[in-house]
């Protein structure tokens, strides 16, 4: 497949460039792990104080957190360069992506590697493995499969929101505050059972800002707590498919918006 080959080729080039001039793998991974560890320690402290949140104990919440974090790391690994979309577009570096026989987005995403995103992913995988063992889930092969699909779907949901927000750059020039806000919502609301925020926020975070599909819905049905959901269970089982649909829509949106690219004045 040409697409995959080109992606690996460009990602490999970014990797070589990184090693020629910048930091070392180990430090970067530790950095990522540390950052996520702080978030987990916070939840730990909360649970230690209150025992349960919304009827979920430590094992349940750690499982939810593990899915969220793994999905986040899985998105960040290929997607981290979207953080720099403002500068790439304002300074006109996007020009050169438009005259190569490779989709411009692929070139943008492979302009650099950021090794700390490996730390995010590693942190997520470690946490999810441990939490899966103690979470009240009946680990049939089907359940394992669904978990893997849910993680990929979660990565696609987060990625699709970031990509759609990034696409606004072609008209608005500066979108990093919007993307930062999205990231905040994910890390502030994404790691808890959504029902604790009440029905209005629950609806908003499912149908307006589809955060629930990343971890809350799949974790809930895997733990067979489907009856506490405000949405039908089949919707929760469909979370991975929602990720695919959203990412497809976001990519189309990106392509349309990129026609408004203005380059820079020189």
């Amino acid at each position, binding site marked *: 497949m040409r697409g995959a080959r080109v992606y690996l*080729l460009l990602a490999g080039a970014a990797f070589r460039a990184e090693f020629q001039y910048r930091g070392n793998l180990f430090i970067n991974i530790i950095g990522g792990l540390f950052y996520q560890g702080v978030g987990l320690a916070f939840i730990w402290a909360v649970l230690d104080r209150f025992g349960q949140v919304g009827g979920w104990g430590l094992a349940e919440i750690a499982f939810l957190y593990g899915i969220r974090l793994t999905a986040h790391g899985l998105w960040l690994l290929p997607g981290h360069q979207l953080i720099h979309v403002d500068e790439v577009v304002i300074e006109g570096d996007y020009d*050169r992506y438009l*005259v*190569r*026989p*490779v989709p411009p987005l692929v070139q943008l995403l492979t302009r650099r590697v950021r090794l700390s995103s490996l730390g995010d992913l590693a942190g997520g995988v470690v946490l999810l493995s441990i939490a899966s063992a103690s979470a009240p889930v009946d680990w049939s092969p089907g359940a394992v499969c669904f978990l893997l699909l849910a993680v990929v779907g979660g990565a696609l949901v987060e990625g699709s929101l970031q990509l759609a927000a990034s696409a606004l750059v072609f008209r608005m020039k500066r979108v990093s505050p919007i993307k930062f806000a999205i990231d905040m919502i994910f890390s502030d609301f994404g790691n808890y059972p959504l029902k604790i925020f009440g029905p209005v926020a629950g609806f908003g975070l499912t149908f307006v800002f589809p955060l629930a599909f990343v971890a809350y819905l799949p974790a809930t049905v895997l733990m067979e707590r489907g009856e506490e959901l405000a949405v039908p269970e089949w919707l929760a089982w469909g979370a991975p498919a929602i990720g695919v649909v959203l990412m497809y829509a976001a990519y189309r949106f990106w392509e349309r918006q990129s026609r408004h690219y203005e380059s820079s004045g020189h």
Partner: protein
Amino acid sequence: MPVIEVADLVKEFSRPTRQEGRFAGLRTLLTREQTVKRAVDGVNFTVQQGEMVGYLGPNGAGKSTTIKMLTGILVPTSGTVTVAGATPWRDRSRNARRIGVVFGQRSQLWWDLPLRDSLWLISRLYDVPEARFRERQRQFSEVLGLGPFLDTPVRQLSLGQRMRGDLAAAMLYDPDILYLDEPTVGLDVIAKERIRTFVGELNRASGTTVVLTTHDLDDVEELCGRIILIDHGKVAYDGAVDELKARYAPHRELVVQTDRLESVEGAEVVRREDGKVWLRFDPVRTPPAELVAAVLERHRVTDLSIVEPELESVIHRIYADRG
């Protein structure tokens, strides 16, 4: 057969109108008024296969904006661009394989990697067969002298070296069309000459169509038979360099080193200095041979030459006439 067809091409950029007075910055941010700048304003031309065209104009005339539409980087506000039968911005991937692009101000190479790696990566992206790649790299190393810095990271190259690297990268996959935006800007005389020689040779040997923007008239004089002169986004002249001179500067000057010369029939004395006299004449009314004969007949001449008008002064005249 035309390879590039440009019809009624327009590009506008809009910006929020800058507000004056109190809280100007904030009001500029909030305003819905837009200031529209027409960078390219109804441009028409066609370029034939194998032509070398100089796209010429002062800073801000709209040269780069035109090139960006020709290459598919910008989508036109209105009008059409057709390159080898396709619309560049719609059919990006196909277009990319047919064109080479070099921007003088911005490298297309991988900044942190050795030049050699950039060339290899490009050969992979364009599916250049391994053997062909090696042959091209050897050729370019020879004509562009890449050898000494093939293994240097691009960020450490001098501007001239980087430009040569960029040219090699743009031609590696044998595109039919080469776009150069200010390829010699900031280079010293030798580096400029090297690049001109390479581009000229490319056009002669492979029939590559070249569109070159510049404000360096030597680029055009040396390379391009045809120039398109652009001013405020509009085409001011499109045609052969010779015709441009003939139309806007029909005169030649005969410079004579002589003892004493008051006047000659058919020419006008325009300057005297250091024992030299400049005689301006119209070669259509006064054939140069006759003028020279007439001068030699009556004066003792130690040296003599005919001076062509310089393109630069011709172009100044055109811009001056247009106001």
